[in-house]
């Protein structure tokens, strides 16, 4: 397939893997302290497992699967709030499919649907707006979820609803923002990271300049990467090369999509509709200041949190669940006490097991239920 196969060329991959191995050998990395490179984005995590990229890397390089799966970091209390909105008579609750199975404290949206709540799976917030247009007597609530990647499409949908004068459309806003989260990870004392594979889709919106502080303040290299396997392999090589040459820079491997200053129209829509929350709760990571957004007061008429009373109760993560440690790269998914036993994709305990972009689910699906077989 044109423009896809080129980025999956096994011959180019072989050459690149050999380059990485040679560079690693020259760097003389001690085996007891391998290099830790975090891919921030869940899309990268999925590609890494799907194409078996870890098996192509020397033992001295370990990939740490970061927090960039918005479904995975959604706390139980917010899921409970979703369900309480969805179960109100007259409400149609529209959501992306992968949020349906995220466990709340008592049930999932899928279970709420089975119990009679009108929960609909949509592929875009515009589909939710269509539901509102076609069901004027109902209140349609869209579950706004995701980093800067999906933030603009939710914002534009609100602007469209405003332009059409649609009054039965609401957003339950759970959008989160990447930079404070990266800062929180970098501030974490247990963390030993040597570099980042930067998120591609988020950067398409925000550009690469917001990451400058990672190089300036924390002296870590960042390479913003595309999602095809060659993109990822090349980005790993670029991070390594920075480390080997003693450089600390923000580089852009995904220049065919990501502009340095991002997408001005998308950023304008985001700025118009949202403002930062004081703090937002993350599953596994706890509360992070300024890491979420809410609708501005001028768009309060579309805000489900203002329209409906939500319980807004903070629910502790299950005790046995070690998602936080996995997210921060302190342990591997299979080192968690409940991985593959009481926590499986069929019945997830922790958030990382829910979405196929979550490190644990990806590991379980493509790496097997136990520590992966040695396949080097």
């Amino acid at each position, binding site marked *: *397939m044109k423009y*896809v196969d080129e980025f*999956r060329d*096994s011959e180019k*991959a*072989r050459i690149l*893997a050999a380059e990485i191995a040679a560079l690693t050998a020259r760097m003389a990395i001690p085996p007891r302290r391998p290099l830790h490179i975090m891919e921030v984005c869940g899309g990268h995590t999925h590609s890494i*497992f*799907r*194409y*078996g*990229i*870890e*098996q*192509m890397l020397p033992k001295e390089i370990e990939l740490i699967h970061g927090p960039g799966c918005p479904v995975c970091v959604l706390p139980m209390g917010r899921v409970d709030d979703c369900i309480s909105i969805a179960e109100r008579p007259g409400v149609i609750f529209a959501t992306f*499919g992968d949020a*349906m*199975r995220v466990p709340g404290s008592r049930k999932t949206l899928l279970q709420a649907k089975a119990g009679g709540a009108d929960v609909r*799976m949509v*592929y875009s917030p515009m589909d939710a707006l269509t539901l509102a247009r076609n069901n004027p007597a109902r209140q349609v609530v869209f579950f706004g979820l995701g980093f800067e990647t999906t933030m603009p499409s939710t914002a534009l949908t609100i602007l469209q609803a405003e332009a059409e004068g649609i009054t039965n459309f609401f957003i339950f806003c759970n959008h989160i923002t990447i930079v404070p989260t990266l800062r929180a990870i970098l501030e974490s004392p247990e963390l030993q990271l040597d570099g980042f594979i930067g998120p591609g889709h988020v950067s398409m919106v925000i550009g690469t300049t917001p990451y400058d502080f990672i190089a300036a303040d924390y002296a870590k290299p960042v390479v913003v990467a595309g999602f095809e*396997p*060659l993109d990822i392999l090349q980005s790993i090589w670029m991070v390594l090369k920075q480390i080997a040459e003693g450089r600390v820079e923000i580089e852009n491997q995904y220049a065919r999509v990501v502009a340095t200053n991002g997408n001005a129209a998308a950023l304008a829509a985001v700025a118009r509709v949202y403002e930062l929350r004081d703090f937002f709760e993350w599953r596994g990571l706890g509360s992070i200041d300024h890491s979420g957004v809410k609708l501005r007061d001028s768009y309060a008429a579309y805000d489900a949190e203002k329209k409906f009373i939500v319980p807004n109760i903070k629910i502790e993560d299950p005790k046995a669940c070690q998602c936080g440690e996995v997210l921060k790269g302190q342990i591997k998914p299979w080192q968690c006490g409940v991985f593959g036993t009481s926590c*499986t*994709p*069929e019945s997830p305990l922790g958030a990382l097991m829910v979405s*196929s972009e979550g490190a644990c*689910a990806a590991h*379980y*699906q*493509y*790496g*097997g239920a136990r520590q*992966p*077989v040695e*396949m080097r």
Partner: protein
Amino acid sequence: MNVISPRRLGLVHVPNVTLAHGGGGRAMKDLIDDVFLSAFGNSAPLEDQARVTLAELARHGDRLAFTTDSFVVDPLFFPGGDIGKLAICGTVNDLAVGGATPLFLSCAAIIEEGTNIELLRRVARSMAETAAQAGVQIVTGDTKIVQRGACDKLFLTTSGIGVIRADFCSGVHLAEPGDIVLVNGVLGDHGAAILCARGDMNLESPIESDCAPLHGLIDALITAAPGIRCLRDATRGGVATVLNEIAEASSTAIEIDESATPLREEVKAFCEILGLDPLYLANEGKIVVIAPPEQAQTALAALRAHNLGTEAAIIGLVTNAPAGRVTMQTIFGGRRIVDMLVGEQLPRIC
């Protein structure tokens, strides 16, 4: 079955099914006559059971095969097929993969009040055409009408009886290290066609379901390569699920080669856009074949010689360890595990 004097078949004169058509009286008889019996061309007197002479069965082999399957596909009509064709092919194929000659089918229909009669006639005609093509007779059936909302338009259940040829013995537990894994053509067409037909994605595509009765292909295959260890139709859960079941049951490992798996360009593109893995997409006309190495080329040639196997391919190899695990050499040169389907099944594809 005896043919007694042909009776006049009743007709339905209203456009839609009502609860009266399920009441057991004249209206129900008219519905069964008009929709099902007229299509199936079955002129035997109606009894509560079909009667089959054992001698007739014994001509085909030495073991009886018996199977059942329900069909709730949404939408009822899709490119390449409809629920009626699917209901015949699904049960015929479940018999055929065991080495059985499919002979007799039952058909039970659960119909939602308000369903259009002409729609039912189209489904029944499609069932009749497919049954004729597959050489099976629909010999018994049942009809129930439920109130609006209690089912979605039409659900079908077919059960089937076939007879297994005496020279063939297969089972998922019989795969051995060294065996070769084959498929009879491009994968994932049915799953992709149904998802496109639903219209949720606003994608238009020329992808058609591969829904087809496979008994002829399988008969030719077994005749050419009688040592075949096992055959499975790769329906819900796709080829990945079938391979896992075989690896688990036979305590072997299976290695497949991504670059060798046949895929239509449109299905590839469809999967790229939606983030789906074609190995997990449903097929309704594709089988996974495990052949001993010395018969692999014969099996491949036999598949390719049949019009439902022209794009057949060898996709992998059975090895000995780790038992129960399926791995894939990715097109990128890495390796990964191909596990059982987890997470959301795409609902109502068959």
